[in-house]
């Protein structure tokens, strides 16, 4: 699975992208975040700012409840500020 981070989330996590092997028991985005947070507490930012953070699964807007699998690309980013 590829996980991407943008804007200040990328700066906090310290990378724009990482590849992980998704354990079988992880079924949705929420579980993924809890899992990452067990490995390193820097991912806690995503839980702390949950109301602010946007999620995309395979480049489509999704939510913390969206089901995921190992072939997916997940992205975490703040509200957009283009234009």
């Amino acid at each position, binding site marked *: 699975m590829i996980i*991407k981070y*943008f*804007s*200040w989330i990328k700066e906090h996590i310290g990378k724009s992208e990482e590849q992980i092997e998704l354990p079988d028991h992880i079924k949705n985005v929420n579980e993924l975040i809890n899992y990452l947070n067990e490995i390193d507490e820097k991912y806690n930012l995503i839980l702390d700012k949950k109301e602010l953070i946007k999620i*995309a699964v395979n*480049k*489509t*807007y999704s939510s913390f409840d969206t089901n995921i699998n190992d072939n997916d690309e997940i*992205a975490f*980013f*703040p*509200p*957009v*500020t*283009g*234009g």
Partner: protein
Amino acid sequence: MTKNSPLIKIKIQNEDFDVSVETKMLQQTNTGAIVNFVGIVRGYDEKNDQIIDSMTLEHYPGMTESEIEKIIVESYKKWELTGITVIHRVGDLKPSDQIVFVGVSSKHRQNAFNGCNFIMDWLKTKAPFWKVEEKNNKKNWVSFNESDNQALKKWEK
């Protein structure tokens, strides 16, 4: 050109764009009206009373284009547009630089005005771009402006 197949152009690029070239392209769409919007990098942050030295924009390649495409499809169904061009710059920009171009053509002016406005409002809230401003040698990620969400309400009716 049939009613259901407008000319569509979406570009995410570092380079500047030429409004007259884009307008000429929209003019070729068997149309009656063109409305262009050009966004410019502001040199002053009014909220924090600070001079902006430069700005950098990042985006999410692939998703940004597909979100813009969704907005465009919605817009031409709603406003009978004959041509739509969206160009958004990324990378390093300076105050007064052009940042975004939204140009639409339609047979009638109200549809062109509304279509352009609709695309810009949705682009501000959905298209994955993020701005970081440099002020006094400090970089700050720009926060989402709640008024951009409010602007969407006019399209609910």
